[in-house]
């Protein structure tokens, strides 16, 4: 850049009276920052949104929650509407049944090929093997007959594919999307009602776990000294008892039910949160800004909750997200032990353990809850990973 000087030879010819100052009429002041300020949460949100996996997980969870709330109302069946005539129906979904999946058909194994009037068993009335001449029981609902070539007690055997809905005498436009269970209850309704109960258990127990752990850990970490010593010894004693033992005992003593499951989940899980918060307090309570606040006369309560605790908000949220899938897991685990929520109410674990009993005959009874619980667990774990990376980028990939 060249600066004008009256003495320089090249400027001798310039008429100085014509020169004006550029910013003569403007008021000069500091300009505003371009862009917006980014706070802690905004920063985390930006990082979170960049992670495709956790974003997908977030939407999966959202869909699951919506289905858990509204899913049972999507059809007219009640969750405890029993009907012995329509038990063990296979899934049948409108639309999908046209292309041959979830069409309400079932292979029935080990049937007699020819009708035997004495026992009433068997399919074909005569040797023509035409689907028009079948025993009354199967009339109109047989789709396919496959001869297995086996002969048991002099009778030829076969397997048949039948339209099970017609077989039990239902109309063509009756649909049980996920089939029915051993009491003829609609599994779609029960599945989402079960998901609702499982999610309620998970959220409530996690909320309580964080709340207790937070206060306990904050007190231990903030005051330190003998308070910390006593509080931490108490947690060590509780943590020393294996989780299976303490949860089982708790459930046996208080009886199966929603509240006792929540308490049983709570009994040890808060300890991890408390320890984490305590460490955070040990780290931050020596900082100058805390000292400054204390010097200004801020009370302990405000120091703990307004000045130190917000530092740990990231780890707390991450921890809560990890606690939710483990609560869902423990609930199903208890259901397998026979300590789940009480019938007729249901949960993911109850559905799984009920379905497991007839896995070979009716596998769909296990797959539907298994897919939902697996999706939920994967989504929550991915969400937790994404949140941890978002709140604390230094931990990425661990």
């Amino acid at each position, binding site marked *: 850049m060249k600066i004008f000087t009256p003495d320089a030879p090249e400027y001798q010819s310039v008429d100085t009276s014509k020169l004006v100052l550029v910013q003569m009429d403007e008021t000069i002041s500091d300009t505003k920052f371009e862009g917006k300020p980014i706070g802690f949460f905004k920063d985390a949100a930006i990082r979170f949104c960049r992670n495709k996996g956790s974003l997908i997980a977030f939407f999966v969870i959202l869909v699951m929650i919506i289905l858990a709330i509204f899913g049972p109302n999507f059809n007219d069946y009640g969750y405890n509407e029993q009907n012995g005539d329509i038990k063990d129906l296979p899934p049948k979904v409108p639309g999908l049944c046209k292309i041959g999946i979830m069409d309400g058909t079932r292979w029935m194994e080990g049937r007699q090929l020819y009708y035997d009037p004495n026992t009433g068993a068997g399919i074909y009335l005569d040797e023509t093997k035409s689907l028009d001449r079948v025993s009354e029981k199967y009339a109109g609902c047989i789709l396919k007959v496959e001869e297995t070539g086996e002969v048991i007690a002099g009778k030829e055997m076969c397997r048949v594919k039948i339209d099970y809905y017609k077989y039990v005498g239902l109309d063509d436009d009756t649909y049980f999307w996920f089939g029915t269970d051993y009491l003829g209850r609609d599994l779609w309704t029960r599945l989402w009602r079960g998901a609702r109960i499982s999610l309620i258990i998970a959220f409530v127990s996690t909320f309580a776990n964080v709340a207790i752990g937070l206060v306990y850990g904050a007190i231990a970490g903030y005051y330190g000294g003998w308070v910390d010593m006593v509080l931490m010894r108490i947690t060590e004693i509780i943590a*020393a*008892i294996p*989780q*299976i*033992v303490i949860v089982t*005992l708790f459930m046996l003593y208080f009886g199966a039910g929603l509240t006792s499951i929540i308490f049983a989940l709570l009994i040890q899980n808060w300890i991890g949160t408390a320890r984490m918060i305590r460490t955070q307090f040990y780290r931050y309570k020596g900082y100058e800004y805390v000292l400054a606040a204390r010097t200004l006369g801020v009370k302990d309560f405000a120091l703990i909750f307004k000045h130190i605790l917000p530092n740990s908000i990231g780890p707390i949220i991450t921890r809560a997200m990890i606690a939710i899938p483990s609560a869902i897991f423990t609930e199903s*685990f208890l259901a*397998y032990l026979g300590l789940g929520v009480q019938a007729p109410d249901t949960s993911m674990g109850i559905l799984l353990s009920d379905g497991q009993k007839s896995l070979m005959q009716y596998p769909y009874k296990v797959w539907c809850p298994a897919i939902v619980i697996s999706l939920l667990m994967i989504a929550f774990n*991915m969400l937790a990973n994404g949140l941890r990376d978002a709140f604390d980028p230094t931990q990425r990939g661990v």
Partner: protein
Amino acid sequence: MLKYIGERLLAMFITLAIILTLVFCMIRMMPGGIYDELEDITQEQLDALYAKHNLDKPILVQFGIFIKNVVTDWDWGYSLKLQPNQTVWGILGDKIPITIYENIFSLMISIPLGIGFGILAAIKKNTWIDHVISVMVVICISVPSFVFASLLQYFIGFKLGLFPIVYEPGSTGFAMFYSMTLPIVALALNPIATITRYLRAELAETINSDFMLLARTKGLTEAQATVRHGIRNSILPILSTLVALFTNIMSGSLVIESIFSIPGMGGLMIKSINAIDYNVTQATLVFYSLISLGSILLCDLLYGVVDPRVRVGGKKE
């Protein structure tokens, strides 16, 4: 070292005593009588049953008698309802080895596999191999072991017929492990994934450290440097997760055993809980406590052996 082990054993004994007391009292304070469903029974017979198992005495007296029998005769009482008039120790004696085999074997296959996958993922970081392993890790960590058990049982066992779908009772040797393959695999998936995840993170960090650069500079190949210097330094943190893994497998096996009808401790515990059999339930719970406490102790001791920097028995600062 000996003093430290002694102290730890004493602490473990005290914890176990607390657990035993809790278990004994809480089980007996459970709501509902144990012989409620026996309807065609006279009051005298009921009283006789109660008297036989000392159930008519106050709980503390019962506890005293129980402790005396255990300490003097190793007598854990009789099964009340599950297999009436059999000693609890006799029932447990058959089941403990099966459960131990099953759990130890899943742990034994999961450690080398986990370490292998972890190393592979760390060396091939940010390639498709790493991504595939990471996805598998997330799936295996998240999906509960009993869902895997159902999948394996249905597809591998039932549809393909490769392995038996349930345990064959009374089989020994190879046949026993063959019929236990599916449950062992179902139990091992989660630990494999956990070890892989930890080792990948540790090793990926170690590979970038200065001493690894030195190792390569002095002429070691990539493989030599990784195996001799990298892995040795990143394997330690795995050790501390082993306890958690083992307790994890143990609690998983509770459900897996009932899915595959393995006559082990898990199935026994579920049956005894549902049948309200005080003596058997308390014995199984004590067994699980013992295993859990024992593995914690073992791991702490092992930690000191493997890493001399960890001073065993050193006081916390």
